[in-house]
């Protein structure tokens, strides 16, 4: 156990996100159960699993919002901390902005707290998403809110972007806009982690998939390899894992 619980090593690997034997329990029930997982930059990961499989909990631990019950969660080989929040951008499923905020207030807030935030880039993204700076966040439809969350998160020049359910409750056209925004910023020095129930939505944009089930890691695979070697799509594998009762 000493190599797991001991202090992280000194040689850091840029842009990596890693969990070692990590567990988070809520009221005695494990939301994430001994997950060991290593994610690297230059990839777009799809994190998959039904509700309650532990996706959000894992992401929140990586964002430093939830403290693990046991195990380690590392960013660039160092435990996730206040420092890592400067380089790890997290977007939650639910809207979280203060009710008094307008679209421009949201951007100014990010600008106040994140050194890697660019208001210019935010303006460009808002334009693409057809959002006005003067709009009040309380008056946005759920689709517009989803786009706003993406715009403000992607306007950061972070090393890691974790987007929890970016396509939830959004119509087809808005999904295209979001997909484009994601792909435009998926450069080789970035790590993107997306969770979604809409598996088909991510077939083409992700290159790796992480399957979680009841808080456990099922597998982490390369999608093109899976297609070439097994003739399976991500959706096929999803059905295999979660389709008929328990695995």
């Amino acid at each position, binding site marked *: 156990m000493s190599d797991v619980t001991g202090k992280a090593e000194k040689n850091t690997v840029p842009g990596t996100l890693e969990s070692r034997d990590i567990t988070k329990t*809520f*009221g005695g029930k494990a939301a994430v159960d001994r997950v060991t997982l290593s994610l690297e930059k230059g990839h777009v990961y799809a994190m998959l699993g039904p509700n309650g499989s532990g996706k959000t909990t894992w992401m*929140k631990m990586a*964002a*430093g*919002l*939830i*403290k693990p019950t046991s195990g380690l969660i590392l960013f660039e080989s160092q435990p996730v901390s*206040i*420092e890592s*929040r*400067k380089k790890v951008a*997290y977007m*939650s499923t*639910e*809207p*979280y*902005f*203060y009710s*008094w905020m307008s679209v421009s207030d949201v951007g100014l*807030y990010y600008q*106040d*707290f*994140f050194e890697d935030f660019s208001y210019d880039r935010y303006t460009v993204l808002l334009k693409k998403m057809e959002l006005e700076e003067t709009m009040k966040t309380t008056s946005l439809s759920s689709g517009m809110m989803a786009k706003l969350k993406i715009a403000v998160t992607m306007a950061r020049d972070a090393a890691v972007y974790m987007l929890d359910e970016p396509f939830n409750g959004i119509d087809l056209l808005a999904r295209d806009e979001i997909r484009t925004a994601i792909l435009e910023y998926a450069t080789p020095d970035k790590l993107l982690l997306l969770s979604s129930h809409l598996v088909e939505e991510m077939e083409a944009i992700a290159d790796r998939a992480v399957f979680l089930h009841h808080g456990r890691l099922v597998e982490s695979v390369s999608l093109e390899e899976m297609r070439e070697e097994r003739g399976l799509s991500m959706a096929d594998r999803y059905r295999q894992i979660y389709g008929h009762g328990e695995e």
Partner: protein
Amino acid sequence: MKHGMSKLLKYEFRKTQASKLILLGLTAVAQLVFLGGLFFRRENAMVTGALVLSFLGVGGILFIGLQSVLTLHRDMNTKQSYMLFMTPNSCYRILGAKVLENGLSILLVGVFFFALGLLDITLLLSSYGELSQLWTFLTDLLHQLNEDIQLNAQNFAAMMFGLIGSWFATVMMAYLADVVSSALLGGRKYNGLLSFALFLALSILLGFLQNLLPGMSPERIILYFMLRAITSIAFSVLIYFISAKIMERYLSV
């Protein structure tokens, strides 16, 4: 990094801005009613204005404290919590901004109403000569009964600081109780009851400690209240560190 702290403070002030503006607006209206009554010799309006002003002063300070506890609760327990806890700021800083904002607000509102009260009493006395005589008569009488009791501004100011200090400490105890409830007892049975018991216990502890201080005596009114204010603030600082430590270690949002 002082930079981050000032940003946090800015947004804490922004969260309480609306209620402070409402308080200011109501105060302006009551003050106008009072002044109108004073200049046009309408006693009813004057008394109403004065009563509402006193109510706003006391109620305002109480409300600002309560509101800050509610804001802290929302910032730890709703989706809004991401706004604070996703930023690269430690819990010491996040909570520190809240404590500072609240302390400053209570103090400023207190000083504001104190100054306004002094102004209004001065206006009243200068405009109603007969009241002025009554006031002098009362203070003289008190002075004859006991040479040390003085109804003067210094004593009132000391009393105000003492009371404001106590209220601030009370708000901080509520902070700690809420932090314990959100970070340690979340989802457990009797969560509310336990954290309320903690709040009561802290209040009793502070009361007990302050009773060890020299008691009130006519010649030491200022010292008495200043000591209360200082111990309350020291106690608040201690509570702040404990709360922030608990948040840093255990809070999940």
